[in-house]
């Protein structure tokens, strides 16, 4: 088993820089995830590392072997670098059976590898399909065939390009678990590319968040979620409420309270980001709810007369059920008498009527302060 080193890789298409000096390290047995919106350069980086694009600037090493070097124009073609790549569309060969697809990359057809294929087909629940053609399989089955095909030649490094985006939501979690188990078994260094933060959190040992060709954060899933390096990363994991303010006495004061900003300069303009799920609400007069499911199960009737909010309470604009959570929009006073809308995602069913008053609490773990230019 080898590790993957990508050093200072830059790549451009038609003069447009796509990847700008990115370095990635994946240890054997580790799953590293490149997370970012489409066009951030993550797929390009993967294709260069796999050898499908000729490197322009930078270096790629697999174990101790240099396979790409922009400085010396060294480029080992993809068929000679011992990598596995699973494509977003699986790219199964339509003219070959499941078994032939999986065996495609095995050069010397040794009995041990045959045995491995048989066992793998069995374990992945494809026993009945060994002689079927790919188009007769479901999406999940195709995904497993593609994964096995990439793993069959025992690659040094495995690349997965959006491996689950072709599956419907209900099937994803099972396939993810299966895939992760298989990767743990083989112990191969895996670089996974996705735009889905939930997928990245679930699969990765480490997440590299990319934006505009740069890596903007490198950390464990928990670090990335709870300690985002900037507003972009915070935003990536779901919609956030944004409030602006100025740093005074190492903190920023907002209509929703005061937020500590120990690292920012005095007088610096700042932005406070609060995750929707970082806000707790309670109907005025009750204590902020601490446990999900305590809230009234039916929407209360509209109030006859709208009460006026005071400094502790806020006026509800709307409340919508989302299934496992409720989305409540309420107004806080902003500059010049204009209200700012704040959205809170409350677990369970919590549907206060419009114009009713709520009290709030903000979870410090899910609110972040960043300097603005």
């Amino acid at each position, binding site marked *: 088993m080898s590790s993957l080193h990508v050093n200072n890789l830059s790549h451009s298409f038609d003069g447009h820089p796509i990847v700008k000096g990115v370095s990635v390290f994946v240890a054997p047995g580790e799953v590293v995830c490149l997370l970012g919106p489409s066009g951030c350069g993550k797929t390009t980086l993967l294709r260069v590392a796999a050898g499908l694009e000729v490197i322009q600037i930078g270096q790629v090493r697999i174990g101790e072997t240099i396979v790409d070097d922009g400085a010396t124009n060294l480029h080992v073609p993809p068929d000679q670098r011992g990598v596995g*790549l699973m494509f977003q569309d699986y790219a199964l060969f339509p003219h070959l059976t499941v078994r032939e697809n999986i065996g495609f990359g095995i050069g010397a057809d040794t009995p041990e590898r045959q045995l491995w294929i048989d066992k793998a087909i069995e374990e992945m629940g494809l026993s009945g399909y060994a002689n079927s053609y790919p188009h007769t399989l479901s999406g999940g089955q195709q995904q497993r065939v593609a994964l096995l095909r990439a793993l069959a030649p025992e690659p040094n490094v495995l690349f997965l390009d959006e491996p689950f985006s072709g599956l419907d939501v209900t099937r994803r979690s099972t396939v993810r678990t299966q895939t992760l188990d298989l990767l743990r078994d083989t112990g191969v260094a895996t670089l996974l590319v996705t735009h889905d933060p939930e997928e990245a959190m679930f699969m990765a040992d480490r997440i590299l968040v990319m934006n505009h060709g740069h890596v903007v954060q490198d950390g464990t899933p928990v670090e990335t979620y709870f300690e985002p390096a900037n507003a972009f990363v915070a935003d990536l994991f779901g919609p956030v409420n944004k409030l602006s303010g100025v740093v005074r006495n190492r903190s920023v004061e907002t209509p929703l309270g005061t937020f500590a900003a120990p690292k920012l300069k005095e007088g610096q303009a700042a932005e406070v980001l609060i995750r929707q799920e970082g806000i707790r609400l309670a109907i005025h007069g009750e204590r902020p709810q601490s446990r999900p499911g305590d809230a009234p199960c039916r929407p209360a009737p509209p109030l006859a007369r709208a009460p006026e909010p005071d400094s502790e309470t806020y006026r509800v604009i709307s409340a919508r059920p989302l299934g496992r959570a409720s989305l409540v929009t309420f107004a806080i006073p902003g500059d010049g008498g204009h209200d700012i809308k704040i959205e809170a995602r409350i677990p369970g069913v919590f549907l206060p009527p419009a114009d009713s008053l709520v009290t709030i609490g903000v979870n410090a773990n899910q609110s972040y302060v960043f300097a603005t230019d």
Partner: protein
Amino acid sequence: MAVPLLAVVTFALNPSDDIWSHLFDTVLVKYIRTTLTLMIGVGFGVFLIGTGTAWLVTMCRFPGRWIFNWALLLPLAVPAYVLAFVVTDQLEYAGTVQVVLRDVFGWQNRQDYWFPEIRSLGSAIVVMTLVLYPYVYLLARAAFLEQSVCVLEVSRTLGKSPWQSFHSVALPLARPAIVIGVILALMETVNDFGTVDYFAVNTFTFGIFDVWLNMNSRSGAAQLASILLLFVLVLVGAERWARRGQRFHHTSSKYSALPSYQLNGMRATGAIAACLIPVLLGFVLPAGVLASYALEFYEETLTANYFSYVINTLTLASVSAVLAVGIGVFLAYGVRLNGSPLLRLMTRFASIGYAVPGAILAIGIVIPLGAFDNFLDALSRQAFGISTGLLMSGTIIAIIYGYLARFLALSYGTVEASLAKITPNMDGAARTLGHGPGRSLVRLHLPLMRGSLMTAGLLVFVDCMKELPLTLILRPFNYETLATFVYQYASDELLEEAALGALTIVGAGVIPVILLSISIVRSRPGRAPDGPETPQ
């Protein structure tokens, strides 16, 4: 592949004997006028028949519609010169039609009645229209099928009648496709030699042969050819331009079953007649006449000569087809692996041949090959005192070269389209699984393209069988293919003896027509997408 074209232009610009002015004074104006009249006539004719029948079979319901759907393509199998021979055979003074008329009306001789002159420009227009309208039909039909019905229905709800909807919505939407169809038909018109020669219509292609063979002036022929090349380049440019326009024509992604206007009574009869007449005249009549002659005279025609012509034809056509597909795969895969602009440009240039009339290509091949042979001969005489003679000119190598230059576009286009259906990720998968470019081609691309490669080969094969002018100029002395044999016998009023040969060509031409009609039915968007082909 561009060598022939460059040779023609170079040779024309450096005339060895100055006949430019002579040409200009004598025949040039006549050639231009005749060629333009022919093009306008055929263009109008194929537009009318092609678009009209396409609209009828896609949008209306009447008895026999599903037969006409594919039967309207059949005339494509008949080379124009074959139809010209049959038409003349039937309509001339001694032909069936006039004999019957004389019997019925008791006329004694030519002075008693008026009958149109058969060997004329008008007949040439009619004959070519009848065999070339399927180009327009094919593309117009595809365009009508692709149109979103919603757009037509909107037009109806806005108060337009079916006819007005056709005129103001369907026709403009299909216009680029129809224009391309007309241009393809015109390219074939310009290429034609057999018909215009037989009808003594003085077009450019006729002129090239005339100047070359009768006036024995190569440079004169090359000069005419280069002017004709200008015509062709205009057509090629127009085609590219029309294809550009095609992009904007999917206005809606919603497709539903096509509406059908039920036609009854007189209207249905009219529709049947409109579809039946082109098929009858363009295919049933010539095939029928040829078949009856072939049966009647099989003893004279089914001889060793016939079989040697068939073998010659099959050899030329199959070698060319295999080479064309091979080179097509090589070029298309090369472009896929290494999409450098230079390579793309070269393949573009190599594929222009299809638009260039066979006569021009033939001249362009004779000139450099002749020069090459003379050079080699001189060299060998100098060095060894042995004359090598003409090695390349007048051999079947020259013909095959000509066929490749003309039909490479056909195989390249088919291979390229088929290759484009294989996603680049497939290549990536094969590469990361340890297969180099060569092995990927063998294990992945070729098996996946198998069907298309067969189609490409077949298309080239049949077109080579039909090709007359190129073969006529480039063939070795006394080397006959079915096309040249039919042309020579029929020109000498011996259609009966040429019938079997002509029928063979038509019969071979029917195969790609069947393939086409299958693929056009499959290609309608909005149909449930076909799964990947299941290998047998």
